[in-house]
């Protein structure tokens, strides 16, 4: 993949009109035992090629190659510490802040290597949004949480319509429409997480990364968010890390199983849970080890 054919919008921060780009994976020596994705019914929008990651001398990811299909929900499961969050955070360059980080391999987004030196991480994060494990609203009003996101993306003028649209999309509008200028920190945990979802959606990114978005929430708030995720895929591509296998089974189309930094298996969610190809996957999804 030559950067010359890359969509220019990833190379600069200014919003640009859409440019159609074909995915042309660069030749890379794949791992011998690399699992093949069987979800080629939609072209991948995001793919990693032999992605390895180190913090200092500790290797956390080992040649992970997987593809994420457009307008689908891809779940990443695996035991604690296997590198799920690290993997997710390389997809929109949120890991850049870690000074000890070292990466090999490639993350291709619509064919552009996101770790190419000419790629602007700010532009990457505008197109690939993120929802975190713990709700992290800004210590500002509900309205200002969304206004900050809009202004950062160069929006001027009245913002109210966009604020309302995003809050409706996150199923929060009815609960907060009378107190838009109250502090976001006064909301309940589940409401805060939906506010964060609204904030991530307000600029309409193309892809949304979620790192255990429900782990701090009660079952009712969780089912609300799950329902939202399920509907989001009509407009967005979603990659979601979860500890909860029922959740992966409920909302995702494709599931990837990571184990000690390696991709053990990726496939249709239904197949992976009912008929896994690998013994390790079977042991994990049946709860034979934690």
């Amino acid at each position, binding site marked *: 993949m030559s950067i010359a054919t890359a969509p220019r919008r990833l190379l600069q*921060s200014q919003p640009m009109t859409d440019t159609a780009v074909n995915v042309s994976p660069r030749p890379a020596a794949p791992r011998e035992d690399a699992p093949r994705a069987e979800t080629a019914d939609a072209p991948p929008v995001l793919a990693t090629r032999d992605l390895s990651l180190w913090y200092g001398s500790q290797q956390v990811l080992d040649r992970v190659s997987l593809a994420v299909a457009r307008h689908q929900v891809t779940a990443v499961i695996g035991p604690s510490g296997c590198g799920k969050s690290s993997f997710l955070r390389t997809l*929109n360059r*949120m890991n850049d*802040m870690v*000074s000890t980080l070292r990466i090999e391999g490639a993350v291709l987004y619509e064919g552009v290597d996101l770790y190419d030196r000419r790629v602007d991480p*700010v*532009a*990457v*994060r*505008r*197109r690939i*949004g*993120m929802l*975190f494990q*713990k709700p*992290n*609203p*800004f*210590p*500002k*009003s509900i309205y*200002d949480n969304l206004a*900050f*996101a809009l202004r*950062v*993306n160069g929006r001027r003028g009245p913002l109210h319509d966009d604020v309302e649209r995003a809050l409706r999309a996150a199923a929060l509008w009815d609960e907060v429409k009378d107190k838009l200028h109250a*502090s976001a*920190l006064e909301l309940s945990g589940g409401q805060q997480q939906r506010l*964060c979802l609204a*904030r*991530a959606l307000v*600029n309409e990114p193309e892809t949304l990364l979620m790192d255990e978005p429900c782990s701090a929430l009660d079952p009712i708030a969780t089912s609300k968010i799950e329902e939202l995720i399920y509907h989001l895929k009509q407009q967005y591509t979603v990659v979601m890390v979860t500890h909860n296998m029922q959740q992966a089974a409920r909302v995702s189309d494709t599931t990837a199983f990571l184990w000690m930094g390696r991709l053990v298996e990726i496939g249709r969610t239904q197949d992976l849970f009912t008929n896994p190809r690998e013994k390790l996957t079977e042991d994990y999804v049946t709860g034979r080890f934690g």
Partner: protein
Amino acid sequence: MPADSRRDVERTPGRFRRRVHWSDVFGFGSTVVAMLVSLGALFAILGYLVAHGIGAIDWNFLIKEPAAVGEPGGGIAPSLVGTAVLVTISSIIGIPLGVGVGIYLAELAGNSHLARVTRLAINTFVGMPSIIAGIFVYFVLVKPTGTFSAVAGGVALGVIMVPIMARTTEDVLRLVPDTIREAGLALGAPRWRVTLGLVLPAARAGVVTGGVLAVARVAGETAPLILTALGNEYFPSGLFHPIDEITLRILKYARGPYDVWHQQAYGAALLLVVGVALGSSLLRLTTRGYDMRNQ
């Protein structure tokens, strides 16, 4: 709880019986003593100032220039104006510079070599006697321009403010959780936008408190001003002329031989204490209200 469920409650607490924890008594007792001693000293000073100085304070004291040497009457208006001018100049110089250095240290520099050198320099300067700032400005500003001046005094005080401001700013910015920075970056905000739009507002109350402390600190400085602002019996004729300041006035009157001067020195000191106390509590009240609305 229904009454009869207490039937089998044993009346004596046995091994749970309340006893005196002597370590608590001595530990907390000594902190109470420390508090009483300090508070007592503070109130003694305040009482002393009020007793000796209240008689000097009237309307003329606030709006008149000093009377002829040793004569009764007259006021310290030039010192009050001078203090305001000097604090303004030093804040214009010291607060932005100090906040800038603090932001650099907290948000940009990490633990780089330059950052460690900067921190060392700041810690040294915070603990340095203020006369050093006075000597420095005397040689780089007063001597070359050939005159003591308000600007020289303001610069000297500003130099003193920078390390104080830098350190408090770095400290309070570090208290802002990283999750806020991550949330901003994940929206595609450049780092500078995250710092100015999210981190600094979240730490606003702390930065303002730091500013108040820095202003209060320089408002009470005398030594560097002797070498830079000099003092003046009259209203200053301009920013590049000598200017008076309240602690310079206190120093002059306290050392003088006249009883009126002594009384006016106490009066001026009383004004300074009350002014600093009022100013800082007002500023803190306004930021507190601000935070409650926005956080």
